[in-house]
């Protein structure tokens, strides 16, 4: 029907997509059907669209807000390294210049991450958590005292590689052609598109990978052909070898199922509670817990009574201050504390 052709040509013309031949064809058609000239005039008046009233004010407000945060991080002293802005004032993105003693397993066709040109390093300092959107659209939440290294050119690589030290929650954008690989000193994880948590703090006895959705494959150091496949709601824990042990021995690891925290009505897991700004713990010793509290609240803990280190705690904090948290813990087990404020961070003495 001629009308379908007219609509097609008219839309191409008005959108600026028509070729000279098509313009001529439309001209012929509307000469034969003059009523369509009126249609075209009305439609043409829809172009170009006027700007929305609030667009400029909204953009300016958003710009000022974002720029304010960019400025804050950019304004920090640059020293030798060039400082890059990032969205939260708490985090600093450093251009990575130094090299790291990361372990590499398996063959790689590309240069190691640390030696590439456009890499970014993001730190979440103690007491802060940081959300990062990677160039491929994957989202990373970085927990306190953790570091993420990624390649700004990851979209041009055959493998999307990142490195983590500390703890991070990943929601990886699907891309079947370019696997997402996460390296930590103790684990190497292959992903296609999924959500999971990695925990590998240097000062802890174990490294952990927890899967929430999708599927991941975990490789153990020095055992490239040894793959562990995790199913959703499972976690893999690797325990550090006791000092002095020979590295040839098998890694000590366990795969266990996640259980939702009993105190919560929704599905919150100990492993990923921090992503929702909750500090969650189940049957942890006070000593283990203080390591996390140190990062969470940016304070140092000291025990004056050794026996207090071993008592065990289960619970979840959401937005509590340090003192509120300590008071809640005193209800579980009696102890006393004093907080000494120092310039940068505080010292909490437990006695």
């Amino acid at each position: 029907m001629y009308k379908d052709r007219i609509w097609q040509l008219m839309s191409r013309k008005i959108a600026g997509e028509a070729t000279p031949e098509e313009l001529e064809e439309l001209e012929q058609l509307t000469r034969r059907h003059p009523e369509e000239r009126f249609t075209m005039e009305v439609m043409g008046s829809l172009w170009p669209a006027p700007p929305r009233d609030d667009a400029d004010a909204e953009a300016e407000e958003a710009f000022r807000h974002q720029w304010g945060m960019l400025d804050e991080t950019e304004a920090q002293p640059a020293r030798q390294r060039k400082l890059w802005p990032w969205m939260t004032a708490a985090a600093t993105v450093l251009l990575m210049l130094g090299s790291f003693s990361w372990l590499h397993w398996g063959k790689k066709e590309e240069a190691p991450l640390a030696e590439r040109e456009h890499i970014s390093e993001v730190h979440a300092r103690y007491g802060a958590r940081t959300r990062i959107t990677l160039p491929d659209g994957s989202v990373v939440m970085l927990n306190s005292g953790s570091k993420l290294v990624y390649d700004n050119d990851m979209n041009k690589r055959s493998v999307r590689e990142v490195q983590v030290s500390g703890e991070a929650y990943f929601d990886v954008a699907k891309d079947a052609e370019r696997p997402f690989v996460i390296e930590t000193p103790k684990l190497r994880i292959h992903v296609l598109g999924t959500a999971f948590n990695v925990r590998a703090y240097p000062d802890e006895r174990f490294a952990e990978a927890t899967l929430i959705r999708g599927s991941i494959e975990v490789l153990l150091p020095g055992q490239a052909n040894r793959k562990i496949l995790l199913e959703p709601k499972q976690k893999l824990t690797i325990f550090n070898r006791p000092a002095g042990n020979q590295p040839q021995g098998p890694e000590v690891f366990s795969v266990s199922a996640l259980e939702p925290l009993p105190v919560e009505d929704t599905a919150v897991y100990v492993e990923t509670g921090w992503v929702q700004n909750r500090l969650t713990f189940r049957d942890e010793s006070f000593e283990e817990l203080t390591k996390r509290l140190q990062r969470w609240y940016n304070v140092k803990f000291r025990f004056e009574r050794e026996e207090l280190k071993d008592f065990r705690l289960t619970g979840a904090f959401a937005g509590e201050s340090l003192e509120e948290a300590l008071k809640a813990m005193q209800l579980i087990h009696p102890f006393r504390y004093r907080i000494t404020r120092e310039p940068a961070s505080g010292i909490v003495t437990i006695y």
Partner: protein
Amino acid sequence: MYSGEELDMCLRQIAAAGCQQSYRRLFHWFYKPLKQFALAIVKSPEQAEEIAADVLVNIWRNRGQLPGIDNIRVYLYVSARNISLNYLKQQHRQATLSLDDVSVSMGPLAMDPEQLFISAELVNRVRSAIDQLPPRCKLIFKLIREDGLKYKEVASILDISVNTIDNQMAIAFKKISQAIHLDMTRRPVPRTEG
């Protein structure tokens, strides 16, 4: 709206000189369109604002790599799309873009009835015909009319063929012109020259 030359110049200033004023202009050109594009997918205004800001902040943060980007408009919208889909995934809702499930709000029409010799009623008809376009069709029509994108760019952004864009635009024109003609059956056709 900006011209292609203005956009190119602006990007060169940002990449080469870290020019704040140019970045501000870029922000003004794209913040609202990106926010509305994200809003169509995630349907949460707060989240859409965060996504638009994320996309634009990433441009500043990685400004050294701007010269390597082929088409900045496609890049911006594709980033917004990916972050939006990631958000939906986090909400356990979906992982791929469902074009039949977008919700698009249309900007003002700015048709002047007197200048066009048409009735206010006809303007309303046109407006409601646009509002009632199917989601996919409405999104494509919006991106082309209001955001000034080319057929090819919209095709890359939505990951569909240029042919589909062409067809959907023809459908939009058909529905709108049917609304115009519905009006004309009830009153004499005004004569206009041009």
